[in-house]
């Protein structure tokens, strides 16, 4: 159930990000279709060749910026690890890139506990990237607790989206 929820949430976010002109994300996400990024009918036709390799967009679209956590969890499951492996590979291709990993929590916790939880999550992402060979000196972390929700909703799907570790490129990407 937890995994399904996470996948659905991730899929919904992908859909939201890809269809920027759409007013609202589709509530009734179909994980089977959306999760596989290769399916062309799910996203508007983002032609891979139009994205410059090593750019922010390349990282966002072809690698994936965020991993999602279970309630009160900061452990990384295999989906998260796959995304982070892609991030690590990408970062090794572009060694001048520096990143800031933000740890986020949903609104269903108290502020101070969530700040601690966010730091735990950001650090879990950092340590996994470091274990894959990314230099720790290229990675900063910050916790936003429940202060920076990705989506404003107050429902299970929104909360799942807001429990995340967000790898943001701060410098060194090609423009």
């Amino acid at each position, binding site marked *: 159930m937890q995994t399904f929820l996470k996948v659905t949430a991730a899929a919904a976010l992908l859909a939201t990000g890809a269809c920027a002109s759409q007013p609202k994300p589709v509530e009734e996400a179909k994980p089977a279709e959306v999760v596989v990024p290769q399916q062309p009918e799910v996203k508007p036709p983002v032609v891979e060749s139009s994205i410059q390799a090593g750019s922010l967009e390349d990282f966002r679209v072809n690698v994936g910026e965020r991993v999602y956590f279970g309630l009160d969890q900061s452990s990384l499951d295999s989906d998260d690890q796959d995304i982070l492996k892609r991030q690590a590979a990408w970062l090794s291709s572009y060694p001048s890139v520096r990143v800031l990993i933000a740890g986020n929590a949903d609104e269903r916790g108290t502020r101070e*506990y969530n*700040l601690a939880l966010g730091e735990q999550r950001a650090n879990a992402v950092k340590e996994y990237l470091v274990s894959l060979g990314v230099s720790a000196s290229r990675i900063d972390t910050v*916790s936003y607790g429940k202060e920076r929700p990705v989506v404003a909703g*107050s429902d299970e799907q929104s909360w799942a989206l807001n429990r995340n570790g967000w790898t943001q490129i701060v410098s060194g990407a090609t423009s």
Partner: protein
Amino acid sequence: MTQRTINLIRHFLAVALITLGLVAPASAQLRVRVDEGNFQPTPIAIPDLQVTGANGDLARQIVEVVRADLASTGLFDLQNPASFIQRDLTINAEPRFADWKIIKTEGLVVGTFEDLPDGKVAVSFRLWDIYGGELMRINGEPGRRLTTTPENWRRIAHKISDSIYQRLTGEDPYFDTRIVYIAETGPKTARVKRLAIMDSDGANQEYLTSGRSTVLTPRFSPSAQEITYMSYEGGKPRVYLFNIETGRQELLGNFPGMTFAPRFSRDGQSVLLSQAQRGNTDIYIMNLRTRESDRLTDHPSIDTSPSMSPDGKSIVFNSDRGGSPQLYIMNADGSQRACPSGGRDTACRITFGKGRYSTPVWSPRGDLIAFTKQEGGKFYIGVIGTDGKGERLLTEAYLDEGPDWSPNGRVIVYFREARPGASPQLWSVDLSGRNERRMTTQTDASDPAWSPLLQ
């Protein structure tokens, strides 16, 4: 006559005199109970002040604030001035008790307002116990006189409220205080959060920071002159001090990790806070004079939200070392203590109920700890004994979070999101669980903290 007979006669005589209302026994003096189960607010009358000088408007405003303060406690029924029978009250004469008994007044405040030659204003007042038929002395005095500049009139009003509240309830005062909070504007995904401050009744709202950096969790120093809070200034979440008088903001300490969840020690000499580093949050105490810090917890789980007992000897905090967030108490010096649940440990768990507990705050009286509880999709504000006994939930909503105590330990302020998607607002509730009230703020608001009584 035997001594016994004399005593009996004395006794009957006393009863007769009391019944006739001629003598008030000391024990029967008006006392408003704050904890009574079957509760009825006490009717009190606060007529307009007798005015000497040209400042009648100010006199009326002062009385309005006093009436509003006392009504806000839920303990008093402020009687409608239109119902008053005696219209010729003077401060130096006894009121006609019978006139006030007709409208069932129990307490009567009689006062004057004067414009002084030096530009200041003075308010004098006396408090009468109508059914006891006598003057209620305030701190041994037959009345009270307060003098200040006209701009400061609200503080005079709050001090009058404090005197009346204290005299009638026996509780310590709390109206002449301020509340610091976080003013929130903008959409949920891009919230602007500013430090804001206001009087305890919501007047004189003022913003202390610009909103350029997100700020969270402000708390007053025991002198009410400084605020400690967390700010994302420069992108790094760290604990700061803010001096209310000078507006000066100062980074606290030189911690390598994120610092948050600050709260002053009871003597104001130190700040308790959390530092998160390499995925682990522990509690530290920083001495404000030496700027040296000591680590108080060293545990791989999250330890945060420390709050010190009034005697400075113990600290309650939030930890998930048992698998979920719960409340624990430790000795401030880190030594082992006898746990209420048995055994000795450096940290004793005090919450064992269903649900998750966080944001503990030790009552200024020392006997209770206020907390936020989450269970079954709801949030609650509650209190529990320091021995983990007697848990009582006072409020319930989609989100009720972040309690703090009035300086007399009778009222708890917190913030609420009433429904999913509702914006946060400040609320207060009496320790009895009665009298839940919304506090009005100019913007959405969260993270309230109550100042000590102003000097």
